[in-house]
C-alpha cells in the first residue's frame, strides 16, 4: 500500500473539489480553512485488495454470529450499555438481511488491525460515491474498486417510498442522507427525509414519516440516542413490519463493548473467536482495580467509550502527556460502565513524497458483499473528522 499523487494540476483539482462539495454534498471538504481532501490516491496491490475484502467478509460473518447470540440475552445487552428502549425495538425486529457496514483496517507490521466496527451510522458515502466519477480519470491507470452507489441501489428493500431518518440537527448527517436521497430519486424511489421523532405507526396502520407512508426505512441516527425519543412504540411496530437499513440490532456490533465481551464469555465458536482475536486489539471493560496498570503503561493503552464516533471519545495514551492521560483515566473511573480500555497498537505509515501519513482503509460491505472504499489518512494515527480523505485505487494487472 502506498500513496501516489493524482495526475491532476491544481487548476484541475479545484473544480473537482467544487463538484465534490456541491454535487456530492461533501460540505466538509474544508475543515478550519484546510482542504481535507488529498490530491493523492492510496494505491493497493491486487493481493492487498483481495486480502482486505476477504478479511472484512470473514470478520463480518463472525460479528453477525456474535450479534445473533447477543440479541437473545438481555443481560449481555445491558452489559454492552444497549439502552432498554433499543432492546425493546430489537426484540420486536423481524429478521432483516439489509445492512451497510464499514470496517476500518489499519495496517500494522503484523497485518491489518480492526479497532472498531462502524455499523450504526457508517459515514463516508459521499466520498465513496464520488470517487469514481470525479477522480477515476486521474489515477495513472489504476482502478476504483467497487461501486457504492450501484451496490446500494442493487440491495434495496422492495418498495417505492423510503423514509430516511437522521439527526436533523447535524449537518454532517444530512450530507450523508442527501447523497442517498439523490440516488433513490434517480431510480424512482421517493425519499422522505425526517427525524426518527417524525415516525408514526398505529396498531394496524402503515409506518409513516411526516404522515407519508413508507415501505422501508434507512436509519442514519445513532442507536444509543433512541432512548431520548418519545415514539418508541411506533419504532417497535415499524421494526416488526418493514425493513430498516440498518436495523437497531446492528448497534450490538457497533458497541466496542462487544470486543471486550467475547473475551469474557464464549459468545461464538472457537474458530470465530480466534479470527476476532487475530484482527482486533485486546479490549477490556474499564476496571477501577486496573487503574494503576493503565496509568503505569500509558503508551500501551487507549481509552474509548462504548459508543463514540469519529474518534470523538478516544484518548490514545501515546499521543497525550502523562497529566492528560491521568485526567482521562480519572474521568473514565467516574463512570467505568461506559468506558473501555484497549491495547494500543502501532500503525504503519504510508509514504508519498514528503508526506508520511497513517491510513485507515475503510471497506464498505452492503448486505455482506464488498461495495467500495472510504479511506482516510492523518498525521498522528488517530482518525477523526479532521483526517484527510484519500481516494483508494487498485493496481490493475
Amino acid at each position, binding site marked *: 500500500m502506498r500513496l501516489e499523487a493524482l495526475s491532476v494540476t491544481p487548476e484541475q483539482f*479545484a473544480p473537482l473539489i*467544487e463538484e465534490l*462539495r*456541491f*454535487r456530492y*454534498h461533501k*460540505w*466538509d*471538504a*474544508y*475543515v*478550519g*480553512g*484546510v482542504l481535507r481532501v488529498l490530491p493523492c490516491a492510496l494505491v493497493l496491490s491486487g493481493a492487498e485488495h483481495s486480502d482486505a475484502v476477504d478479511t472484512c467478509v470473514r470478520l463480518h460473518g463472525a460479528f453477525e454470529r456474535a450479534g445473533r447470540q447477543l440479541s437473545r440475552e438481555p443481560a449481555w445487552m445491558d452489559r454492552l450499555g444497549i439502552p432498554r428502549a433499543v432492546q425493546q425495538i430489537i426484540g420486536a425486529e423481524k429478521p432483516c438481511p439489509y445492512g451497510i457496514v464499514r470496517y476500518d483496517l489499519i495496517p500494522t507490521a503484523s497485518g491489518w488491525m480492526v479497532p472498531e466496527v462502524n455499523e450504526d451510522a457508517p459515514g463516508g458515502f459521499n466520498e465513496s460515491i464520488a470517487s469514481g466519477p470525479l477522480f477515476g480519470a486521474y489515477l495513472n491507470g489504476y482502478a476504483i474498486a467497487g461501486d457504492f452507489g450501484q451496490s446500494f441501489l442493487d440491495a434495496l428493500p422492495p418498495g417505492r417510498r423510503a423514509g430516511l431518518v437522521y439527526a*436533523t*440537527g*447535524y*449537518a*454532517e448527517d*444530512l*450530507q450523508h442522507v*442527501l447523497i442517498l*436521497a439523490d440516488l433513490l430519486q434517480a431510480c424512482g424511489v421517493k*425519499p*422522505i*427525509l*425526517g427525524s426518527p*421523532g*417524525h*415516525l*408514526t*405507526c*398505529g396498531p394496524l*396502520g402503515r409506518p*409513516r414519516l*411526516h*404522515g407519508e407512508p413508507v415501505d422501508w426505512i434507512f436509519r442514519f441516527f445513532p442507536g444509543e440516542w433512541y432512548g431520548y425519543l*418519545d*415514539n418508541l412504540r*411506533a419504532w417497535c411496530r415499524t421494526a416488526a413490519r418493514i425493513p430498516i437499513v440498518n436495523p437497531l440490532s446492528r448497534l450490538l456490533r457497533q458497541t466496542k463493548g462487544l470486543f471486550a465481551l467475547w473475551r469474557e464469555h464464549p459468545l461464538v465458536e472457537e474458530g470465530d473467536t480466534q479470527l476476532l482475536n487475530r484482527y482486533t486489539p485486546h479490549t477490556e471493560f474499564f476496571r477501577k482495580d486496573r487503574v494503576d496498570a493503565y496509568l503505569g503503561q500509558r503508551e500501551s493503552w487507549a481509552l474509548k467509550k462504548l459508543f463514540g464516533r*469519529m474518534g470523538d471519545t478516544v484518548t490514545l495514551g501515546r499521543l497525550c502527556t502523562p497529566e492528560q492521560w491521568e485526567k482521562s483515566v480519572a474521568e473514565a473511573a*467516574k*463512570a467505568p460502565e*461506559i468506558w473501555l480500555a484497549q491495547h494500543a497498537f502501532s500503525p504503519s505509515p504510508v509514504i508519498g513524497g514528503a508526506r508520511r501519513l497513517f491510513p485507515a482503509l475503510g471497506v464498505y460491505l452492503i448486505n455482506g458483499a464488498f461495495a467500495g472504499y472510504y479511506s482516510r489518512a492523518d498525521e498522528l494515527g488517530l482518525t477523526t*473528522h479532521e483526517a484527510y480523505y484519500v481516494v483508494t485505487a487498485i493496481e490493475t494487472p
Partner: protein
Amino acid sequence: MWSPLLKPLEWLGKIRLPFMRTRTGTVVGGPREPDALGTYEWQAFLDARALSRVWGPHGHSPWMPFHCVTLFVSLEYMNYGIQKVIGPCAQDPWPLKNFHLPAWVDASVLLVVDLPGPKSAAVGAALAIAGCDLVCTFNNWPYSGALVKPEQTLAALLRYASLLDKKRTAYATPGPVAWLCDNTRLGNRPGKPGEFDNRYYIEDSIIPGPNYLRERDISKIIYITGPDIKVQNDIKGHLHFLKTAGLELYYAVALDTGSLGGPKPLNIEELKFSTTGFFRSSAGGFGAPVPHPSSGG
C-alpha cells in the same frame, strides 16, 4: 400537593396522534415574493452552487479560498421538502437603489461589511454591481428556533441573486473586494441544553494575512458598520493585526440613505477573543444542538 393533580395532565400530554407528526422547518423569506428585479427568477437560485456562484468571488479570483459555502449549502434541505417555505425577503433591507460607489473604494481597498446579515447582503449587492469582488463569511446552519437567524440573510441573498447574475461587474484587479459578514453572528447568549446553537465567529482562516493582501495590491481595510459604529469583538483582533502589519485601517458608516459615509481612521485596541463555547458542525461551519449534561457521575 400539586403532583397528584398534575399526573393526569402529564399522562394526557403523552398521548400522540398516530397519523401525523409535523415538520418543524425553518421559514426563509416568502415563497410568493418577487425578487429585486420584480421577477420570480430567484427560483433558479434555489440551488447551493448557483446561489454561491453569484455571491462568491469571480471565477479566477484570489479570494476564492476565503468564501464560506455553509449557508448556501443549507439550501439543499429544500430539495427534499424539509424546508417548504422559502423565498426572498419582501423589501430592500437597505436602500441600494440610491447607491453610488464612493471614489475612495478603489483597487487598493478591502471592505469588511459588518452589518445585520440582510443589510450586509444589500450593501454587498450594491458593491458587486459597482465592480467589487465578494466574499461571504456566513458560516452557520439555519435551524428552527436557533439562536442566530441566518435564514433572514438567506432570504436577502435570494432577493438579489438574479440582479447580481445580470448586473454584476468586475475590475481587472483583485481589489476592491468586500467581505460580507453578519454582525449578529455572536448572538446574545450561549445556547441552553436542547437548543440549536449556531452562533459563530470569524475564524483566522477566513481573513487573509497581510502578505497575501499586499501581494494583491490591497493596502487599506475599511470596516463598514452601522451608525452606532460598533466593531464586533471577534474581528477586533484581526483588524488590529492587519493594522500592526502596516495596512491602513478605516471605518465607514452604511447610512440609511443608501450611501457610505466616511472613511475615517479606525483605532482599535488589541482584544483577546475567546473561541470556546461555540458549536462547530463537522460538516463545516457552526451549528449543533447543545448537549444535555451527562447524568453519569
